[in-house]
């Protein structure tokens, strides 16, 4: 099963041709297209998000700070960041393991299993929550009732973030040549040594990317936690639910302040991820 002729060296594929000087739509066409796209993004994404940040700062920085440090807001932010961190770590390990099993192990029904991995992305989050509540709630057929606990929050977040690490690591593992591993084995390296010294260094950038994405997604998750977490303030209320409750209670400024924190954290994670990918690409 040695990947035939796939070199481990940086592949000598020619750089994609630079954009040709000729363009199918130039001048007015491009201007109209660009105008449409910018207007669309502005009306739906940019102006509304800017309004959130502005609303959060309505009473100056001290007002913002007070809003995000009320006992309830602080506890919800701590829970959300903490749970997302735990979820990201579990995903880093389990996602890598699952990707490994899908690529390298013989599993009956692998194609079906492989397709199933994407189900959390396709399933509406409220249905995901309902499904988990059915198994791990009060009416659990296996007698495992974790509803309304922090563990339930973690399980819900694990469900919705499952595909991230698997789907970033899997293609890299598929591309990875097994010749080096065979060489290491022939030189007497055990499976653990081979994994940690040869496989892992190659997939670390992909693991990091998937982990960062799952962290960002977990931070912003709402629907899957609504039913199973019970949304108990100071216990299981995640940030998105807190924002929702503030909004329902007409505390728009408070909702916007906590939202700003979430937006900033997500942005930092995504920028860090982008830098990481550029670094990995440069390193080859």
């Amino acid at each position, binding site marked *: 099963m040695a990947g035939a002729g796939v070199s481990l060296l940086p592949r000598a594929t020619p750089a994609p041709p630079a*954009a*040709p000087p*000729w363009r*199918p*739509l130039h001048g007015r066409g*491009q201007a109209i*297209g*660009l105008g*449409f*796209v910018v207007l669309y*993004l502005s009306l*739906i*994404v*940019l*102006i*509304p*998000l800017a309004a*959130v940040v502005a*609303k959060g700062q309505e009473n100056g920085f001290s007002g913002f700070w007070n809003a995000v440090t009320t006992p309830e807001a602080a506890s919800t932010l701590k829970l959300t960041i903490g749970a997302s961190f735990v979820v990201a770590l579990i995903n880093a390990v*389990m996602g890598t*393991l*699952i990707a*490994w*099993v899908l690529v390298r*192990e013989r*599993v009956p029904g692998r194609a079906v299993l492989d397709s*199933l*991995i*994407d*189900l959390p992305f*396709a*399933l*509406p*989050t*409220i*249905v*995901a929550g*309902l*499904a988990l509540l059915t*198994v791990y709630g009060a009416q659990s057929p296996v007698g495992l009732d974790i509803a309304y606990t922090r563990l339930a929050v973690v399980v819900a977040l694990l*469900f919705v973030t499952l595909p991230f690490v698997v789907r970033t690591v*899997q293609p890299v593992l598929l*591309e990875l040549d097994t010749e080096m591993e065979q060489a290491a084995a022939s030189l007497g390296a*055990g*499976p*653990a040594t081979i994994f940690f010294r040869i496989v892992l260094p190659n997939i670390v950038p992909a693991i990091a990317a998937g982990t960062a994405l799952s962290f960002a997604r977990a931070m*912003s998750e*709402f629907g899957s936690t*609504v*039913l199973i977490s019970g949304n108990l303030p100071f216990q299981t209320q995640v940030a*998105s639910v807190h*924002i*929702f409750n503030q*909004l329902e209670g007409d505390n*728009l400024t408070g*909702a916007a302040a906590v*939202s700003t924190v*979430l937006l900033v954290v997500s942005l930092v994670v*995504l920028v860090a991820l*982008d830098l990481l990918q550029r670094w990995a690409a440069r390193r080859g």
Partner: protein
Amino acid sequence: MASPGVLVRPALKGVALLYLTFLLVIPVALIFYRTFENGIQPVIDGLTDPATVHAFQITAVVAFWAVVANTIFGVTTAILLVRHDFRGKRVLNALIDLPLAVSPVIVGLALILVYGSTTGIGQTLSGIGVKVIFSIPGMVMATIFVCIPLVVRAVAPVLEEIGNDQEQAAATLGAGPVQTFLRITLPSIRGALAYGVVLALARSLGEYGAVAVVSGRLVGRTQTVTLLVQERYLNFDQETAYACALLLVVTAVLALIVSRLLAPKEITR
């Protein structure tokens, strides 16, 4: 090769499979079981309830407009990003993925802050008879927001791959930009476009958080299927909740299968 490590691989494989079974397979399978627990009649009753039918209609209308808008936007943006150079291209490229990192509740809040009834824009719009928040237009906008990257990211890699030789040839033969697009570009991105549209449609049908905020969850008026699932579950009409949830599961699985079949090879590694 009889080292103690010989059991490690099967053990790890077992751990991975158990994890998937308990996190994914059993919960989703149990939705099927719970739905048909009391036979098929409650399912039929739940799905043909007027409130359910209305929720289906609302969901279909919202998803339809959101997908149409995002398809036009997605193709235009993909062409701009792949075929054109302009200032701010990298910023635009980064902005496309931004919605993935935004909590659906924040999406709703953001739209309320701009288009709500207390804002200048909201009042101006309601002056000309357009109600955005707690109404269909706001729900469409929220759904558009969460689906923005899907069509762009499906079409762009294929556009990149096919290059523009044929487009150039068409232009030298005298075809205008519109004719070139309709006769050359569109047919060659057809598969990728269908893939992106299926993804966007699935996401639109299943959106919950953003729509929950923007719709005001007015039962019988702005209630979508996902909102109905939650409302019925909390109001102890579990049969309807499970029946609708099952329908959403089936929709998601169908979308997965169709998108797998349509996925362009540029995307499936």
